[in-house]
């Protein structure tokens, strides 16, 4: 069989471009090799030695991998690469290339395994994954099935790079799995090998570890504009990343559409297949409405392939396409078996929604799939950053486009609350940071500029469910004597109704500044489910908790931020919601689970007044819409939204001297979220159990306009980017949505 000249050139090119020889086909647009250097912040390499179980080798220039004494004393290498420069790609192939400087014996198998626990280069030992935290199993926690393996020859394979194929693992890092890197071990079935192989580490002078990725970038800046019976889409096609090798040219896009529900994450156009307009893909029958091979950047759907029906929701997902008919999915060419697309094969492909209408068309500003429906609200740094946590991943998004600015940040446990963001000029750590407590008993501080972790600490042996409260030193008065910002977190020890804890952590280092433990000589402390509130005026931290089912123990706590000493506590009944301070800090509004909204004097702790509108009692934190007394307070119950005016006969307000006067209510909304409004805003935003964000008129309570996120989903608490005028919310379909406000 004669090989064509064209194919010969192609094969030669592929050989020259590959860091290590490989016979498998490569057909995709870009290839980039990233070298692991000491400059990479979201990465690391080390080795761990069963003969030196507490020794860390994070600064070693060689990584040893061996099964000494017939496997009785193994040595393993850990390597994690920084993929920050490739935030949004469909991976087609990924290989770890390691420079092997010595090989003791031939015939031994060296395997790469996906690590499944977070570790650090400076903390990892045979015994520990972090400085003071042990692996669940000594020697590393990883998938037992090797991702790939090699059997190098000890004479001919020394002093060259060797490649381990980790394609499926790299694809999973972009579709829902944390990236904790790989563990390399010697398969221990071949007898004794005293020294195994040595690999150049990132600290070596030359020939550092590399990862070679072949991929398609996603399209960006996807916009929809809904009209009467039409939806106009626009986007920006990818341009090659600096330093990448172009294998195939981007030629256009393929667009899938679905009505009244999302395009399925498992709906993936198969590489190598050309689709015709109006064909369908996947069991969800997602419709191919547009295929372009001429680098189009717009498409107006005026009703192709069965037409658009006004006032219905349409999802559009836009895949980048190259000259070899590869699509920007997280899968290879096979439709089943090895290389088949995972269930999330198209999960991070950009998508957007629109509702065409003759009278009131609208569209989402952006949509981002967080891959889990945890309903954790996005944290917003207005105009600068959106960070949303979902399950065990944290996503750093461009607030204008919703595009990820870094690959997902792996967290060791699930995150249930809103990440708390502080920007560099305002915090003590000196750069933009997000603080995230997690259910693996750890608290994380992530640099949202780089996606790297500033610190990870383990103050507790039980989970954190609630978001953190942050006291910024910059905004604190003279009574705040700590040198750095304070991060306050409370535990969810479901096994105890009395001995939960509250920790004050150093915002720069994570070190524990103080601890309050319930029980013993202290009042009993049940689980904490909501973020503490910082009272800058009175120099206090307010925390709410459950109370063992009744009013026999406290559920509202006032703590000294410098010491953690309890200044005051109140037995109001179980509370799962954060307290809301009035803008003047003269009233603290607290929602008791299924009970009354209670106004508390933040100085004395006395109850000023309370209101229970019925409908099963209050739920969620209230919102305060006016800057000073009398306060307009918006609250929600099981299926309604209410507004009350809170006022006092005297100044200061005396115990029992506060009065709630109903403004309006209850406006019917199925299973409402916490209301969002604030001084200067004339609207109230509420997420519903009906899949919508509702925009209520603050003056009348009229539910005037809504935005449908998705059908049959529950919408979480709403956040607002005041700079970009966007309302943001997560939904139980796992997506984060942004809509322009006012609706």
């Amino acid at each position, binding site marked *: 069989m004669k090989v064509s000249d064209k194919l010969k050139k192609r094969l030669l090119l592929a050989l020259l471009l590959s860091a290590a020889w490989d016979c498998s086909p490569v057909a995709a647009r870009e290839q980039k090799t990233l070298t692991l250097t000491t400059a990479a912040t979201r990465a690391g390499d080390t080795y761990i030695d069963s003969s030196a179980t507490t020794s860390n080798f994070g600064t070693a220039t060689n990584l040893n991998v061996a099964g000494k004494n017939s496997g009785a004393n193994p040595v393993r290498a850990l390597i994690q690469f920084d993929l920050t420069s490739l935030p949004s790609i469909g991976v087609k192939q990924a290989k770890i290339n390691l420079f092997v400087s010595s090989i003791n014996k031939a015939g031994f198998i060296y395997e790469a395994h996906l690590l*499944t626990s977070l570790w650090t280069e400076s903390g990892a030992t045979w015994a520990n994954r972090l400085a003071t935290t042990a692996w*669940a199993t000594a020697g590393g926690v990883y998938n*037992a*099935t090797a991702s790939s393996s090699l059997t190098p020859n000890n004479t001919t394979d020394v002093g060259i790079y060797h490649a381990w194929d980790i394609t499926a693992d790299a694809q999973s890092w972009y579709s829902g799995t944390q990236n904790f890197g790989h563990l390399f071990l010697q398969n221990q079935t071949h007898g004794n090998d005293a020294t195994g192989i040595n690999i150049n580490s990132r600290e070596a002078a030359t020939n550092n570890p590399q990862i070679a990725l072949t991929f398609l970038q996603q399209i960006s800046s996807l916009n929809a504009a809904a009209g009467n019976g039409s939806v106009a889409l626009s986007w920006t096609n990818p341009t090659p990343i600096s330093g990448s090798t172009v294998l195939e040219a981007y030629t256009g896009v393929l667009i899938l559409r679905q009505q009244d529900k999302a395009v399925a994450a498992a709906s993936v156009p198969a590489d190598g297949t050309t689709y015709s307009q109006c064909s369908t893909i996947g069991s969800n029958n997602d419709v191919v409405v547009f295929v372009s091979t001429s680098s189009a950047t717009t498409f107006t759907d005026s009703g192709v392939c069965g037409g658009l029906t006004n006032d219905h929701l349409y999802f559009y997902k836009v895949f980048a396409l190259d000259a070899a008919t590869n699509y920007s999915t997280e899968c290879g060419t096979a439709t089943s078996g090895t290389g088949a697309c995972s269930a999330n094969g198209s999960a991070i492909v950009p998508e957007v929604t629109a509702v065409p209408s003759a009278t009131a068309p609208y569209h989402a500003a952006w949509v981002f799939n967080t891959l889990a429906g*945890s309903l954790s609200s996005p944290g917003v740094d207005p105009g600068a950053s959106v960070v949303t946590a979902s399950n065990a991943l944290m996503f750093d998004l461009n607030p204008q486009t919703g595009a990820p600015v870094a690959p997902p940040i792996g967290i060791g446990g699930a995150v249930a609350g809103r990440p708390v963001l502080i920007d560099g000029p305002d915090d003590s750590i000196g750069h933009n940071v997000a603080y995230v407590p997690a259910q693996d008993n750890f608290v994380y501080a992530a640099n949202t500029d780089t996606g790297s972790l500033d610190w990870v600490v383990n103050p507790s042996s039980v989970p954190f469910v609630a978001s953190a409260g942050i006291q910024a030193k910059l905004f604190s008065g003279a009574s705040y004597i700590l040198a750095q910002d304070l991060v306050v977190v409370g535990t969810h020890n*479901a*096994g105890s109704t009395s001995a939960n804890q509250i920790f004050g952590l150093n915002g720069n280092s994570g070190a524990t500044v103080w601890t309050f433990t319930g029980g013993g000589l202290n009042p009993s402390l049940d689980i904490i489910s909501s973020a503490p509130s910082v009272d800058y005026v009175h120099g206090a931290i307010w925390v709410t908790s*459950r109370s063992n089912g009744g009013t026999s123990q406290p559920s509202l706590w006032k703590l000294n931020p410098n010491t953690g000493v309890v200044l005051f506590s109140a037995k109001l009944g179980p509370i799962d919601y954060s307290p809301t301070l009035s803008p003047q800090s003269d009233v603290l509004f607290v929602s008791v689970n299924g009970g009354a909204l209670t106004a508390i004097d933040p100085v004395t702790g006395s109850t000023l007044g309370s209101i229970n509108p019925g409908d099963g009692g209050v739920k969620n934190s209230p919102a305060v819409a006016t800057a000073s007394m009398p306060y307009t307070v918006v609250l929600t119950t099981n299926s309604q939204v209410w507004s009350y005016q809170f006022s006092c006969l005297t100044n200061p307000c005396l115990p029992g001297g506060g009065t709630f006067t109903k403004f309006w209510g209850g406006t019917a909304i199925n299973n409402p979220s916490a209301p969002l409004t604030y001084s200067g805003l004339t609207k109230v935003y509420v997420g519903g159990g009906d899949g919508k964000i509702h925009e209520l008129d603050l003056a009348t309570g009229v539910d005037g306009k809504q935005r449908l996120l998705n059908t049959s989903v529950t919408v*979480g608490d709403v956040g607002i980017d005041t700079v970009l005028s966007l309302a943001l919310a997560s939904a*139980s379909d796992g997506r984060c949505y942004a809509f322009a406000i006012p609706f």
Partner: protein
Amino acid sequence: MIAIGGCAMNSPIMIVAPQPAPLAMAVRLCDSAALGCVNTTNFSLASMRDLTVNVDWQNVPGGTHTQQLAVLLPNGVVYQTISQGFGVPESTLGSPTVIDAMPVAGTFITQRQLAGEWTVQVSLDGAVVGLQKFQLEAN
């Protein structure tokens, strides 16, 4: 393990090897607030604290393993995943019980009454092994 050597033959000899015991597991669910772990698949959001998931494994090969639980919402979307490593002595088949817990009380599950039929999907080393459905009942 079977070692095969020698030359190819026209009439192959059938080698009957003992079949490895099949990997198996069973899931027990309970409310952490209940005394002991009373296995059930119906829970009340009004009283539940944590969902405790006990996975009883059988015939797990020796070595290091990672169990992953994916807890799916009634709409089939992942709500949360929980990974845990465990070890089985080399050259043995292990029958460990791996216990994980998912907070329920005070989370969005109770705050937003995410009731309905949920699913726990159990994977070992990246491969799905089985699942268990359970019911969360609204207040």
